[in-house]
């Protein structure tokens, strides 16, 4: 591959050489200078695309997301819980939806992060090299599996299990609305699984980056391997692990398709066996047919999600900067 690409420019070399030979070595080659300038400008434009993209996404989210706030009223929209966009007197309260996103993400992190960190410990400290060489790629593969497949499997495996659990828990209840297993609990489990690879990969690299002398010193002082791992290495890898947690929060908050398939679809209080909506699934399930104010409100839902994500991004940048300072 390298040879092939290296050969290509050779055909153009003589022409450039010829052009140079006609001029003094101290002269200025205007064509060449022109080329350099154009190349520089093109590369600059490429680099600025990212800035333009972020700015225009921000601008669009704000421009399209705010009109509904004025139309419906900030209090009625953000702090009311009744969601009836197509009723005769429509009501657009998204408080439950916001609450569900927060609660769902929180419990997904609570469930996924310990599993992720312990798996990372296994890969870096406990397993021998051969086993680690199998486990780590397996974890990386988990990240590559499309979210719709997680959704499909959640729908086929997790939901029936949850339904059994639900029937057992609410056997005597008269008031409970049965969901067939499509509930907050299913969504939390799917989210926890989906953030695993993020948490594991970044934790692994931060635990590996812990200086060896810390580990040796701890072992030499008589601490057991486990004590060394949990009292010395993990605290030393703290900033990397924090980064992985923040990234996991971002991933869980933004996941749409998988949890749309397993969480049911009613706007409800975030209770484990309730069929629920998240900020993301709200968009997925209603954007296709929403019109008028309803549509504008959905853009506001998008804006709320976007603000959450931007806050997470800022926290992430801060955590990473802090980590960089500590490492110095």
């Amino acid at each position, binding site marked *: *591959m*390298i040879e092939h690409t290296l050969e290509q420019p050779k055909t153009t070399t003589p022409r450039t050489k010829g052009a140079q030979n006609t001029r003094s070595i101290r002269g200025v080659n205007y064509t060449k200078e022109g080329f*350099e300038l154009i190349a520089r400008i093109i*590369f600059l434009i490429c680099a600025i695309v*990212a800035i333009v993209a972020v700015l225009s996404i921000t601008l669009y989210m704000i421009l399209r997301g705010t009109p509904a706030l004025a139309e419906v009223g900030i209090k009625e929209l953000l702090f009311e819980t009744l969601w009836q966009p197509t009723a005769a007197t429509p009501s657009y309260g998204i408080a439950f939806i916001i609450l569900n996103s927060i609660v769902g993400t929180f419990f997904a992190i609570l469930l996924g992060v310990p599993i992720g960190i312990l798996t990372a410990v296994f890969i870096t400290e406990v397993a021998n090299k051969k086993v680690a060489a199998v486990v780590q790629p397996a974890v990386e593969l988990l990240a*590559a599996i499309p979210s719709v497949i997680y959704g499909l499997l959640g729908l086929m495996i997790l939901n029936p299990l949850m339904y059994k659990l639900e029937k057992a828990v609410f056997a005597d209840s008269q008031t409970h609305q049965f969901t067939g297993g499509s509930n907050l609990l299913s969504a939390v489990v799917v989210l926890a699984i989906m953030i695993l690879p993020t948490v594991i990969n970044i934790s692994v690299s931060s635990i590996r980056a812990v200086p060896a002398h810390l580990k040796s010193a701890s072992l030499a002082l008589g601490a*057991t391997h486990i004590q060394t791992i949990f009292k010395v290495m993990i605290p030393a890898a703290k900033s990397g692990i924090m980064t992985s947690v923040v990234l996991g929060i971002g991933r869980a908050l933004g996941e749409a398709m998988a949890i749309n398939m397993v969480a049911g679809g009613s706007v409800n209080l975030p209770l484990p066996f309730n069929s629920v909506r998240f900020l993301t699934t709200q968009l997925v399930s209603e954007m296709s047919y929403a019109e008028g104010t309803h549509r504008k409100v959905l853009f506001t839902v998008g804006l709320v999600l976007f603000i959450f994500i931007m806050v997470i991004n800022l926290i992430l940048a801060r955590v990473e900067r802090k980590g960089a300072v500590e490492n110095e």
Partner: protein
Amino acid sequence: MNSICVKKRHPSDTLLYIAIYVCAGFSVALLLGIILYVLVKGFRCVSWDFLTGVTSVLNGTVGIAGNIVNTLYIIVITMLIATPIGVGAAVYLNEYAKPGRLVRAIEFATETLSGIPSIIFGLFGMMFFGQTLHLKYSILTGSFTLVLMVLPLITRNTQEALKTVPDSYRSGAVGLGTGKWYMIRTILLPSAMPGIITGAILAVGRIVGESAALLFTAGSSGLLPKTAMDMLEKTFEPGGTLTIQLYLSASKGEFEVAFGIALVLLVIVLLINFATKALAKHFNVNKE
């Protein structure tokens, strides 16, 4: 027990060891379980007709050829746009830019882009490309949206690759009197090619697995282009990728089809993953 050479055993150590093994086992079992389940369930549905046919209620056939073609369209168009921009951005950041406010802004923007969830990209793509630029639901809208999504991935991988090119290459080239652009074209980019290709393959993997960003941008048609003219026009028409079709089939309760598509997707994703691994290994060996 009282020897200083033997460390005291703590019962909590054993518990933590068990927890570590259980968690690691869970993570691996999860992957194996997913692969096996999809394999077993999907195997029944996948056949030659399924892969090469088109779903038609009239003929009573079920096929995903249209979705495969749509996925290919979106991959090709997205990569054709995203690769040059991503590589160019990385070259600028690594070779031209001096540390300062602009570089920090670009890097922060790239970081932010990679943190934005795909549903937001979908929303933006629908508003900007679909409505403002009047592309409506089309393969182009979907591709443009995905360009923004995979851009950080390509930029970052290229940057990493450029960083591994030794500075002596640069000094050597400049010493020989080449211009900067000539040096980039003939020395830096070829040396960084493995990293660029790895980034590109990873980006293809993300495109294949993407669904939320395409639902409101590329739409969901699964028809095949019939004539040569259709092939071009198709880019302006809606086209559902494999993931979108999987989602739609699952919501309609056609689980057989859904698992068939899941199997196809899984095979593609696994192949892409192995390809990147093999490439990385191959080039690492070459460098030594």
